[in-house]
């Protein structure tokens, strides 16, 4: 009888533990709700495409980029295997353990009006920004630029250039510029502080979204940032130069802080 009670108690503990675990997995991540909404379709496409698309990237970074993409869409409730197995439990542990010492950044998103590019010729829809989002993920800052069209994995020729750039300004006034740039050879990410630039890993391309990653340490302790997003597309043709520029927000800057 005594053993039977112990068995019941253990069983109850196991059930309770399972419920807690499920609740933790189901809880939306810190990403902006609006960012997650409407991205499910894109994410499904990305899940299908992620293999060959990221196959061209450096192995380590490619894997990380895929996790980041899944993590972003976990807010839709379709947490993929990568999100749950890689960032889910780890994030929960980090969140509990690091709360007293590490700042918790509030996700920041901004929408942009459709069809508001400064452009000439036949500018592609992917040059038209629809939104931008910043959020922290562990030690990384994720910067997502979403456009009205599907972002290509490379430019068709060397006469065509595409860039999505984030300008981050600290309270001190120092500015950090991180941008993803496409060429016929694919994508690359560059970081600049106004004195040259250095190359980071490749961004993750997911349908109409480009996700850049930056170590939070690069913010150098800034408690808050003002940020803007811009896109630029340029094509040199026989008859002239086509271009398209867009920025978000359309006036002022968004705020990212902890």
């Amino acid at each position, binding site marked *: 009888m005594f053993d039977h009670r112990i068995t019941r108690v253990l069983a109850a503990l196991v059930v309770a533990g399972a419920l807690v675990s499920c609740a933790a997995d189901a809880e939306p991540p810190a990403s902006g709700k609006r960012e997650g909404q409407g991205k499910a379709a894109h994410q499904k496409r990305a899940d299908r495409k992620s293999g060959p698309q990221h196959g061209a990237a450096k192995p380590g970074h490619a894997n990380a980029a895929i996790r980041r993409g899944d993590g972003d869409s976990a807010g839709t409730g379709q947490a993929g295997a990568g999100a749950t197995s890689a960032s889910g439990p780890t994030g929960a542990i980090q969140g509990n353990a690091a709360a007293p010492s590490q700042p918790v950044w509030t996700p920041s998103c901004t929408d942009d009006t459709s*069809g*508001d*590019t*400064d*452009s*000439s*010729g036949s*500018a592609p829809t992917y040059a038209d920004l629809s939104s931008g989002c910043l959020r922290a993920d562990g030690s990384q800052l994720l910067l997502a630029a979403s456009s009205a069209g599907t972002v290509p994995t490379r430019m068709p020729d*060397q*006469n065509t*250039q595409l*860039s999505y*750039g984030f*300008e981050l300004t600290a309270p001190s006034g120092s500015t950090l*510029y991180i*941008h993803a*740039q496409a*060429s016929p*050879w694919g994508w690359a990410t560059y970081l*600049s502080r*106004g*004195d*040259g*630039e250095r190359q980071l890993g490749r961004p993750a391309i997911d349908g109409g979204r480009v996700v850049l990653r930056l170590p939070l340490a690069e913010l150098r302790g800034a408690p808050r940032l003002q940020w803007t997003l*811009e896109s*630029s597309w*340029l094509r*040199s043709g026989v*008859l*002239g*130069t*086509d*271009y*398209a*520029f867009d*920025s978000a927000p359309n006036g002022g800057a968004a705020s990212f802080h902890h």
Partner: protein
Amino acid sequence: MKKRRTIALVGVGVAGAALALSGANAFAGQEDAATGGGQILVGDKGAGDTVAFTAQGTAEAARGQVQYVDREGGTGQGQTVMHGTVTCIDVQGNVARIAGEWRDGGTFGLYVQDNGEGDGSDMIALTPNLTDCAEDREDDDPTGLARGNAQVRDRG
């Protein structure tokens, strides 16, 4: 004495007609504005250096972007893409003087002359190391001519 390398781009008729401004709010508001693009004609390298820009604001404060593709390295991956942000714009009639900063360091000035859509004689001159829209640019010495098109709006 600062070194200046100036690039001038002059539009031709066909290019001007082909490049119609289609932005929905290219010149929203009542601020001075300019936008355009063009490329230098070079000999056997194919398409030359290319510049495109958009600027809106005043001589004190402005916003906008500049993208410049330097193809001095010829074809292939030797080309350099530079991004700049606009800090001021001063428009007098059909001429816009723009200045800004390259993202990776340095400054630039743009001299833009809009001679009419399809007219074919628009000029865009890019000059490194300028920081002020009112800075004297009489020393500018264009080193190349190319096709291009520009739109300038004087709302001041």
